[in-house]
């Protein structure tokens, strides 16, 4: 599994940019990351935590509300990051594999749609 070599949180643009060890770059908007929060509360149960979000979430427009504003991003061990949002929510752990699997770039989406 490829790991990130760098993560940039750009508050002005409300984006998180992840640079991966294999050279790929993923660009996530804050609102997208909040919508796909993998915690049990957001996903509707612990058995849903590992599941990938549906395709519809990629089409939703960015939103600027306290729930969608990133307050803090911190590493969790060596396997992921946790994000605290301005509404106080902070339960989600975004593991590297999960972040890579939800990469919204056209190349990754095409691969995901074709089962790649």
């Amino acid at each position, binding site marked *: 599994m490829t*790991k990130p*070599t760098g993560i940039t*949180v750009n508050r002005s643009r409300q984006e998180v940019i992840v640079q991966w060890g294999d050279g790929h770059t993923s660009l996530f908007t804050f609102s997208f990351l909040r919508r796909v929060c993998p915690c*049990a509360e957001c996903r509707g149960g*612990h058995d849903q935590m590992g599941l990938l979000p549906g395709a519809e979430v990629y089409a939703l427009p960015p939103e600027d509300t306290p729930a969608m504003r990133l307050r803090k991003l911190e*590493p*969790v061990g060596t396997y992921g990051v946790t994000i605290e949002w301005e509404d106080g929510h902070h339960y989600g752990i975004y593991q590297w594999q999960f972040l890579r699997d939800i990469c919204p770039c056209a190349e990754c989406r095409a691969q995901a749609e074709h089962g790649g």
Partner: protein
Amino acid sequence: MMERLFETFRKYITLPVIAGGLLFALGLFGVTLLLLSASRGAADPVGASTPLINIIPASTATPLAPMSPPTQTPLPAAPTLPPLPPGTIAVGAYVQVNGTEGDGLRLRTEANLSSQVAFLAAEGDVYQVIDGPRQGDGYTWWYVIDPYDQSPQGWAVATYLAVIQNP
């Protein structure tokens, strides 16, 4: 007896022999260092286990100051949480079942004593905390999961969990 033995070997202990021995030892040391550095590189091909996190603060609507000689200001520091005291349970921490005197710890489907037991964790088992804390029936509960086999998981009473370093 010992003196004769010493006399026998004494003729072999010459300066070239000592120098050769030292060179051989240095060579072994160098090879060991090379092997160590090679094995570290293979274990962590990315170079660093934790990626560099860079926080770019949002721009503010502060009006431009009148022209003045430029001064260097320090960059705003990335916000960080104060480190948790050692032994504090938190999401992401690894914990070990401890103090059940061999009875094991019940991992439940909800954070209360009346919910179903999903799994009986054995004394000494290591889990990872992925959710919590919750309060229920007078206890603090954390949702733990087996980091190797994701199936054993559930809410556990904090009293019987001890924080350990990454296993």
